[in-house]
């Protein structure tokens, strides 16, 4: 194997990996972005993701309809969001602490209810082939795209547009930047935050259902392995911009595919290092993008970590 075909294989694998692996990152980070835009942090999305994966799989198994599973996963996610929104409304409650509690609660609950679903095989989401123009099997495989990925792109563009150009977008941004100003405008701050957190939970739940119903496509307890937490970090370096969230999710997907792809072409020394690529990437971007002399550009003013 020469250098060129090897390099092409890795690039193709990273491209395919970006499309395959990025969807949960995208949905969770869009959900977290929306919640943070309204002035709260929901660290519990990891738990929401895992519970969404479990509930989506269970519903798909019982009803035979994976799309119903996706919907129920989103609905369960919004319930977790509602719980977070409700608890944080109470006086002197810290949203980060509640988030961590909900993360553990969500994963624990998912493991508890998920036991009977580890073995059975549930119907999975279909994919759409965009690669029929190519006769390269790798490219054809890479372009087997799940509708949820496309939905995620549409959602990112929609959120980007809606946050800037609609009345609701303005209300959310105002609430997130200055609660007193929002109050003065007659906005019910708590309700806006509750609804934003619920919507965020809905997206994260859908992200979870992608994990169990499409890729890797089965429910196991190790399914998420921290992807929900990474997606939360991803929001910060995406600068609370939905479009950047999309690029960041793609980057994370590609980084995750790097380790196995390099091993498949024979570059196998130091695979632990390449497997850690997504985490190293998180650190590097965090270091490169922070400065003690200025606050993060685009950060909502009400966020408890930036206040």
């Amino acid at each position, binding site marked *: 194997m020469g250098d060129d075909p090897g390099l092409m294989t890795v690039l193709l694998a990273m491209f395919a990996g970006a499309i395959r692996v990025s969807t949960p990152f995208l949905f969770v980070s869009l959900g977290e972005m929306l919640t943070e835009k309204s002035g709260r942090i929901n660290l519990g999305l990891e738990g929401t993701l895992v519970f969404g994966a479990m509930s989506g799989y269970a519903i798909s198994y019982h009803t035979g309809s994976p799309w119903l599973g996706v919907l129920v996963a989103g609905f369960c996610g919004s319930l977790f969001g509602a719980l977070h929104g409700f608890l944080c409304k109470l006086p002197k409650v810290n949203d980060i602490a509640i988030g961590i509690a909900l993360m553990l609660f969500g994963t624990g609950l998912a493991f508890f209810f998920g036991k009977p679903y580890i073995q059975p095989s549930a119907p999975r989401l279909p994919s759409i082939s965009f690669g029929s123009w190519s006769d390269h099997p790798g490219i054809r495989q890479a372009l087997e795209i799940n509708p949820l990925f496309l939905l995620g792109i549409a959602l990112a563009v929609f959120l980007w547009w809606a946050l800037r150009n609609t009345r609701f977008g303005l209300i959310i941004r105002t609430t997130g930047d200055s609660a007193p100003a929002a109050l003065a405008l007659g906005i019910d701050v708590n309700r806006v935050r509750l609804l934003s957190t619920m919507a965020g939970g809905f997206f994260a739940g859908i992200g979870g259902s992608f994990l169990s119903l499409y890729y890797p496509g089965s429910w196991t307890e190790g399914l998420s392995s921290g992807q929900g937490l990474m997606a939360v970090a991803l929001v910060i370096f995406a600068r609370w911009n939905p479009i950047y969230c999309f690029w960041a999710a793609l980057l994370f997907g590609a980084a995750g595919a790097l380790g196995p792809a390099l091993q498949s072409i024979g570059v196998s020394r*130091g695979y632990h290092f390449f497997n850690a690529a997504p985490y190293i990437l998180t650190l590097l971007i965090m270091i490169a993008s922070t400065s003690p002399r200025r606050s993060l550009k685009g950060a909502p003013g009400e966020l408890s970590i930036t206040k």
Partner: protein
Amino acid sequence: MSKFKLSRRTILKSSAAGLAALSSAGLPRFAQAAGLTVGIVYVGPRDDFGWNQAHAVAAAALKDVPGVTVVEEENVPETIAVEKSMESMINLDGANLIFATSFGYYKPFVLDLAAKYPDVQFRHAAPLWTEADPKNAGSYFGYLDQAHYIDGIAAGLSTTTNKLGFVAAKPIGTVLRNINSFLLGARKVNPDATVQVIFTGEWSMPVREAEAANALVDAGCDVLTCHVDGPKVVIETAESRGIKCCGHNASQAPLAPNGFITGAEYKWETIYKMFATDLAEGEALPNFTGGGFDVDFVRSTPYGAGATEAAIAAADAAREEVKAGQPIFVGPINKQDGTPLLAAGESLDNYEPALDQTDYLIEGVSGSIT
């Protein structure tokens, strides 16, 4: 193998004698099985469709022994956490026999506790115990590489690209040995076969396992197998990519109705049932229990739709040969870096202790262990 059986018996006898001697010295004895509490520690969930499930299902045999109480804990990581779990089983539940079912539990955790609690018996599921280790510790193990060798034979006759893919968790002895035996099986029937291995670095990491499986298919492999705790993802990925696969740990045949060839399964129930009988009869458990097809500790999954007539015939014949003691490691075999492992005409017994310490891949396997 007869030689092996002999040594197991001898150990069994001598340790039973040893225990009888000990019990007269006032130490607790299994003879009064009443009051025996068995603690079992698992690294993952007990129903993972793989390693832990195979143990949990088989260990249920112990629960039927009168007077034996079983306490179990799952999802215990291979860290200091397992030491705490085992200590709490000993101190709070009164466990006097511990089964530690994951590879990384042994050193240093089982060894430390065995020294700290000389009255408690420890048994660990990997062929790691040696004479130098505490006498209240021990190992039990099925030599799954024999079943992976049979998989390799069936896979070698099923591939058209001559490239077989192997998704492996960690580069430890038993995993490397399975990979080597898989290649030797394939090479026996198909001298051009190669095995490409990708290590994920974790016992259970579903997204990375799926990525690894896809990368292997993209690299041209047309038969996949794996050594991870829950092979579900690898098998389902192989099936969805339209290639064949061989299972691991438990039967994954229903997951791949088109491409499943056969699989390498432990038969832990033989071992646990044997232990249960020993306990019921008040005998001590042997320090070292292990074996393959010959003592019914491993088995092949019934053939799936992916197995051809030729593959079935060759695999069945090879299984009988292994059962009769014919060696898997027959020279000439070189290690990956070209240094000879066995010269032509040499061979290693299937229970050769040196194979337990496998720290190399052999020529024909691509992939690095570092």
